[in-house]
């Protein structure tokens, strides 16, 4: 993360409105340790994703990824499963904030889901906002990360940031 370059392959290309119940079913919301949420990521709707994925892999989707509930377990399940990040046309608001806070990289790119195929190898420059699809040899424009995202990704999320802030006092 030091250089803000991510590398990995695409494990799935999904559609619009991938909601938080799809990402993390409500029945497991009484799991309150973030790391323990990982085993239930995509469990009901797309169980094959977890079986296929390798650490660092990306999810690609169309618009409004993460819509629905405020459950932070949806972000935690992706982060602690080892996903490298999510690339989508747009993200729902609370999921976006949760991902900032837990340090899961989200990459906004209008057209990525149309161009990128499952299995493609990607190299993403988070600061410049460039997705390099090495399999198809294409460059795709993304939005560069905003200031808060850079800060929290550097610190490892909101908790380490606040821990540092308050341990100084």
């Amino acid at each position, binding site marked *: 993360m030091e250089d803000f370059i991510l590398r990995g392959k695409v494990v799935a290309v999904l559609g*619009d*409105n991938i*909601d938080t*119940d*799809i990402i993390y*079913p*409500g*029945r497991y*919301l*009484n*799991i*309150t*340790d*973030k790391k323990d949420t990982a085993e239930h990521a995509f469990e*009901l*709707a797309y169980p094959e994703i977890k079986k296929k994925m390798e650490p660092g892999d990306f999810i690609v989707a169309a*618009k*409004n990824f993460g*819509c*629905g*509930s*405020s*459950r*932070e*377990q949806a*972000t935690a399940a992706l982060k602690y499963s080892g996903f490298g990040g999510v690339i989508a046309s*747009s993200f*729902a*608001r*609370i999921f976006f*904030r*949760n991902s900032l*806070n*837990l340090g899961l990289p989200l990459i906004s790119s209008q057209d990525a889901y149309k161009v990128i195929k499952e299995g493609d190898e990607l190299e993403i420059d988070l600061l410049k906002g460039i997705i390099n699809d090495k399999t198809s040899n294409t460059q795709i424009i993304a939005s560069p990360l905003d200031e*808060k995202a850079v800060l929290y990704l550097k610190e490892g*999320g*909101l*908790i380490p940031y*606040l*821990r540092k802030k*308050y*341990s100084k006092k």
Partner: protein
Amino acid sequence: MGMTIAEKILARASGKEKVKPDEVVVAKVDVAMSHENADVVRKSFIEIGVEKVWDPKKIVIIFDHRVPAESERTATTHKAVREFVKSQGIKNFYDVGKGGICHQVLPEKGHIFPGAVVVGTDSHTTTHGAFGAFALGIGATEMAGVWTEGELWFKVPHTIKIVCDGEFNPGIYAKDLILYIIGKIKADGADYRAVEFTGSTIENMSIASRMVICNLSMEMGAKVAFTPVDKKVIEYIHQRRKDWSFDHNLKADDDAVYEKVIHIDVTNEIKEPQIACPHSVDNVKNLSEVGDLIIHQGVIGSCTNGRLEDLAEAAQILKNRKVHPDVRLIIIPASQEVYLEALNRGYIQTFIEAGAMINPSGCGPCVGVHQGILAAGEVCISSTNRNFIGRMGSKDSFVYLASPAVVAASSITGKLTNPINLK
């Protein structure tokens, strides 16, 4: 240039005279609400390493998602939160049997006021815009930050104004109006935006109906939603709150700037009940377009539609009728207060005589945990707020969202039914 309601509240809460859309501000939080996920917040808070929460008086914790505890795991998290609440001196704690669904209990117990900045670890926190609060859902770790600092950064949202005029046709309710709007502007149509609802339809609505509108605005992505602060709102709050030092005249400036203005002619545009079909809330159709639909379960309840007026509507339809032999009708009063009043008015007796089952006040099957889970292939008609894949049980079950009146009527006939056609 004037300000919208969202801009006014964020300006006050961040100590500025004026704010503009897209500006980032740090605002003081007036109410910080959590339910069972207070246990996730608690763990993040402990990780941050601060000993005491910033202000125990501003934190409200209400158990509703799994009440009473449905498993040992939940019982353990409930217990941990109870101990934390005691150790931190948090007095506003509504345990099993003491409150009900968080978005009903917060205003009912006087925690909400116009102009307040309200954050909740629940997406439907937008409900409290019905009282003029800047109210929105946040995640658990963000809440741990609020418990630590008492403030939070916000990007000032652009505001969409939705003007609704006209009277409802018979059998049409606030639920139909908001489903109609979501169907029109879609699940991301108000992403990151504030929404102000105005017009005669909204002004004539009860508080409970306005709560339906603000509650479901979340399903089109709204960050916050508002209905007008008027005499009805002020009266409601005066009855329930000791501190009246809030802005009694909160409203947008006449020259406020809106990103978009949408007009809805309620009488002419909405002639039939609106149904949100599987598996997204914006997949909205007129009831007659859905066609023949056999149902196995009906649910009347949730933070969306479990209030007294919803139960009154259902009771009127179910009086001297029977729930279809092949249907389970589950009714969940939104709070203990609503439950008691429904009991006093005889609604509960009507429901039981009709063959419905009453669940304890809480979220019940809406989050797919307990008290009415669906099997594969089953269809549920529900007054709740989400119909996502697996939301209420099996990934191969189907949830259709509708008004309480449609749920009641359909539970009698065993198939999707317009209440005005009930014989």
